[in-house]
C-alpha cells in the first residue's frame, strides 16, 4: 500500500519537487550527462572504526556487525559527550515516527533533559511514517529543509545525486578516515554501515544502523518439541518436518504465510538465491534468473501443494500474520529479525511454554543456504548545506544521538530521567514508568543512532539466543552487488516490471499457473527493461558513469 501511494506521489509531486529545488532534471535527462554514476566504495575512505571503550558486554560484538549482548544493564556507564554540542542555539530536525505521539516538550521531562545536555533547542518536526512521503516532498519542493532530515526512502527524490550535491552537505571532508575521531560515537559505527551512506563516492548520510541482515524468519520451538521434531538439517528434512507439524484437526499448520507469499523469502534463503543480483566477474544475473531460484520456487509449490501453510493465509496482512504465529496456528513464519524481542515478550504472555526462535535457513542436500544483507540501515539522515562551523556543530549533535549502549547519554535517550521516566529493579535494570513509556516515544532514535546492542532484562535468554542466531545469520550473509549503484531505468520502471513478475510468481506458488509460466515471465521481464537495467548496473559496476 505504501509503495503504491509513494509512487503515485512521486509522479504527482516529484516533477515539482525537482524544479523547485533548482536541480536541472530535464537537462540531466536529455543530454545524457554524467549527473549520476556509481557509488563505488573504492575511492572514498570510510570513517575509521574506533570501538566504544565502554562497559564490557557479556557477549562480545564483532566488526561484521554482530551486536554486543548485555544480560543485565551495565553499572559503569561512560559519559561520551563532555561539552554540550550547541551553545544556546537551535537545531531543526525532521524525522519519522512509528510510535504514538509523545507529550509536547513543555510537558516532557525527558525531552527537556535532552535539550539541557544538547545545550540548545531541539526543534523536532515529527512526521507519521504513513504520511512521510507527502510531508517530505512538500518541504523539499518548498525548499524548507531543516538542518537535519531523514531520507527514509531515496526513491522519493527523482535524481538523488543531483539533489544531494545541490542541497546537502558532503560530509566526506569531516568524517572520512581519521577525521571521524572528532566524533567518537560516530567513529563507533562499523564501516559496513557507513558504506551504505555513500552516494557518488561521497558520504552524505548519518546512519541509523540495524542488524545487517533481516534474518530468515522465526519458528516456535514449543510446537517442534510437541511434535517430537528436531530442528531440520536439510531442506528435505524441512519438508518432512512441515508435514509432521501440520495437524489441521488441532488448528495447527507448519507455515504462516501472508500477502505476497512472504514465506517464500525463507525458502529462497534456504536455496541460496542471490540477494537481488549475482555478480559474476562484472556480469550480473538477477536473482530470479538463477537455477537456485527455480529450485526454490519448485520447493515452495511443493509445500503449498502438501497443504502445510495455514489455509487462506496467503491473503492476510502483517498483523494477522503475527497473530497467527503468536496464537500457534503455524510453527514457522517469515518476519524481520527486529520483531524477535516482540515475539518473545508477547508469546510468553500468551503461553509461557511458547519458545520463538530465529529460523536459520538450512540448505537442500549439496546446496548452500544464505541470508541477505537487507537490514544494514533503517535509513540515513542528511544535513542541509551549511558553513563549516555549523556543520561541525551539527555533527556534534549527531554524535550525541549516536551515543552507544553503555553511555549515560544512551540511558537518557532510551529511558529518560531517573525517578520520573524510569526506576531501577533490584539488579539495577532500568524499567520505564508509565510516564516514561509515553515520553520516550520522541523519535530521536531516527535522527542518528548507535550500532545495535542486545539487551533485555525481562528475558536474558533472548539476549543469548539472539546473539547466537545473529552470529550464524551474519556469517551466512551475502551482499547485493548493486546496493549502492544507480540504474535510472530501474528507478523508473523497475518496480512495475518487477511487480508483473512477482504476480506471476505468486500465481505459480498458489498453483494457479505452471512453472513454465514463470519462465516466460522472466523472459518478458528481460525484454521489458530488465536487460536495460542489467546493462546500466553493469556499466556502473565497472566504474563507468551510468547513462542518465
Amino acid at each position, binding site marked *: 500500500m505504501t509503495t503504491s501511494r509513494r509512487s503515485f506521489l512521486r509522479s504527482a509531486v516529484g516533477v515539482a519537487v525537482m524544479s523547485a529545488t533548482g536541480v536541472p532534471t530535464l537537462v540531466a535527462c536529455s543530454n545524457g550527462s554524467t549527473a549520476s554514476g556509481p557509488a563505488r566504495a573504492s575511492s572514498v575512505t570510510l570513517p575509521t572504526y574506533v570501538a566504544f571503550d565502554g562497559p564490557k558486554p557479556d557477549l562480545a560484538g564483532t566488526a561484521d556487525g554482530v551486536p554486543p549482548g548485555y544480560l543485565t544493564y551495565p553499572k559503569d556507564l561512560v559519559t561520551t559527550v563532555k561539552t554540550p554540542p550547541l551553545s544556546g542555539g537551535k537545531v531543526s530536525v525532521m524525522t519519522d515516527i512509528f510510535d504514538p505521539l509523545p507529550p509536547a516538550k513543555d*510537558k516532557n521531562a525527558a525531552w527537556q533533559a535532552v535539550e539541557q545536555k544538547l545545550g540548545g533547542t531541539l526543534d523536532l518536526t515529527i512526521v507519521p511514517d504513513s504520511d512521510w512521503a507527502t510531508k517530505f516532498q512538500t518541504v523539499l519542493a518548498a525548499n524548507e529543509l531543516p538542518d537535519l532530515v531523514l531520507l527514509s526512502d531515496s526513491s522519493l527524490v527523482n535524481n538523488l545525486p543531483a539533489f544531494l550535491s545541490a542541497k546537502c552537505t558532503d560530509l566526506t571532508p569531516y568524517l572520512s578516515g581519521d577525521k571521524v575521531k572528532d566524533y567518537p560515537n560516530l567513529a563507533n559505527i562499523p564501516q559496513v554501515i557507513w558504506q551504505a551512506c555513500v552516494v557518488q563516492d561521497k558520504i552524505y548520510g548519518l546512519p541509523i544502523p540495524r542488524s545487517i541482515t533481516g534474518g530468515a524468519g522465526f519458528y516456535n520451538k514449543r510446537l517442534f518439541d510437541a511434535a517430537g521434531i528436531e530442528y531440520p538439517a536439510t531442506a528435505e528434512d524441512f519438508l518432512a518436518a512441515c508435514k509432521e507439524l501440520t495437524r489441521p484437526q488441532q488448528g495447527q499448520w507448519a507455515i504462516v504465510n501472508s500477502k505476497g507469499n512472504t514465506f517464500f523469502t525463507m525458502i529462497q534463503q534456504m536455496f541460496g538465491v542471490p540477494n537481488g543480483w549475482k555478480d559474476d566477474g562484472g556480469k550480473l544475473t538477477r536473482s530470479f534468473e538463477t537455477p537456485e531460484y527455480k529450485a526454490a520456487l519448485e520447493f515452495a509449490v511443493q509445500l503449498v501443494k502438501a497443504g502445510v501453510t495455514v489455509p487462506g493465509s496467503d491473503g492476510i496482512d502483517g498483523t494477522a500474520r503475527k*497473530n497467527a504465529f503468536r496464537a500457534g496456528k503455524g510453527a514457522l513464519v517469515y518476519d524481520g529479525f527486529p520483531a524477535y524481542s516482540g515475539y518473545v515478550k508477547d508469546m510468553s504472555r500468551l503461553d509461557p511454554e511458547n519458545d520463538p526462535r530465529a529460523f536459520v535457513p538450512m540448505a537442500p542436500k549439496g546446496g548452500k543456504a544464505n541470508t541477505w544483507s537487507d537490514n544494514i540501515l533503517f535509513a540515513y539522515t542528511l544535513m542541509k548545506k551549511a558553513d563549516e562551523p555549523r556543520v561541525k556543530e551539527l555533527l556534534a549533535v549527531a554524535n550525541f544521538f549516536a551515543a552507544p549502549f553503555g553511555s549515560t547519554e544512551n540511558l537518557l535517550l532510551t529511558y529518560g530521567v531517573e525517578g520520573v521516566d524510569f526506576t531501577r529493579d533490584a539488579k539495577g535494570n532500568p524499567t520505564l514508568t508509565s510516564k516514561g513509556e509515553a515520553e520516550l516515544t520522541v523519535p530521536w532514535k531516527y535522527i542518528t543512532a548507535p550500532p545495535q546492542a542486545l539487551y533485555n532484562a525481562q528475558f536474558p535468554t533472548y539476549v543469548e539466543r539472539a546473539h547466537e542466531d545473529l552470529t550464524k545469520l551474519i556469517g551466512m550473509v551475502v551482499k547485493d552487488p548493486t546496493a549502492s549503484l544507480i540504474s535510472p531505468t530501474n528507478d523508473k520502471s523497475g518496480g512495475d516490471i518487477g511487480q508483473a513478475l512477482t504476480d506471476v510468481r505468486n500465481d505459480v506458488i498458489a498453483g494457479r499457473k505452471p512453472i513454465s509460466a514463470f519462465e516466460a515471465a522472466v523472459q518478458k521481464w528481460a525484454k521489458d527493461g530488465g536487460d536495460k537495467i542489467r546493462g546500466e548496473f553493469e556499466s556502473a559496476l565497472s566504474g563507468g558513469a551510468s547513462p542518465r
Partner: protein
Amino acid sequence: MKTSQRPPWMEAPSKAGLAIKGVVIAVVCLLVLYPFVNIVATSLAGESEITRRGGIIPLFPSEPTLAAYKTIFAGGVVSHALLVSAGITVIGTALNLVVTIALAYGLSRPIVGGRFVLTAVLFTMLFGAGIIPNFLLVKALGLYDSYASLIVPGLVSAFNFLVLRNFFQNIPAELLDSARIDGAGDLAILLRIVLPLSKAVLAVVALFYAVGHWNAFFNALLYLSDTGKWPLPLVLRLYVLQGQPVGGASESPGEAVASIQAVQMAVVVVALVPILCVYPFLQRYFTKGVLTGAIKG
C-alpha cells in the same frame, strides 16, 4: 404507518409486502450496524482473546476490558489533541460562518463588482492551487506552525457559499424592502430577517464546516511542526495506521495488555463519538437545508 399518509389512489399494503420491506430494512440496518458493533466489541477485548480469535471480535468480548482506552488516554496526548480539535472546530466553524454569511449575503443582492467576486470564488472551486503553492503561501503569511493555518486557508468553502447564496437569493425582496422602509440597515436586515429565516441551511453549512474541521488532517500534517498543536485525527492516525505495539515495556504480569487491534478500534470509537453525538440534533435540518439551497435556483 397510517394509511392517512398515503395518497387516496394507493392501495393498502399487503401483509407480505410489509413483511418483505421490514426484512429488507432490517438486513440493511444490520449490515450497517454490524461493523460498528465489531469495532466496539474489539476495542473492549483483551489481547489473548483477539489473538485467539484472529483479530476481530464479532459481537461480545468474553472478558471485556478498558485497557485499550486506558492506553490511548495515558500520557495526556490524546486528551490534549481532543481539546485542540474541539477548539479548532468551534472557533473555525464560527469564523467560517461569519465570513461565508457575509460574502453570500453581499453577493446575493445586485452590487457593483459582484459578478467579478462571484467568478473569483467559483474559480477556486474549479482550479485548486496545489499542495506546494499553498504551503509556500501559508509559510509566507507567517501562519506556519500556528492554529490559524488550520482555519484561515479554508475560511470560505465555495460550495457552502453557493448553497447559502442561493438560499439568500430566494428570500423575497419585498420582505427586505419593507424592512428597509421601517428603517433597518443592511446589518439589521441580515441579523434580524435573513438569518432567522435561514436556520435550516445555516445548520447544514455549519455541520459541513464542523465535520471538516473535526477531521482536519492534511493541513495539520503539512502546516504544523509542533506536535503539541496536533489535532486529534493526526494523533490518532499514529495508532491506526502504523500498528505499533504501544509502550508495554514494563507491564506487570497479569495486568491486562491492550492489543494493537483493540487500540485501533478504540481510536475509531474516540474519533467517531463526538460527531455521532452532534449529528442527531442537526439531522432534521439536514435534508431540508441542502435541498432548499440546491433546488430553488
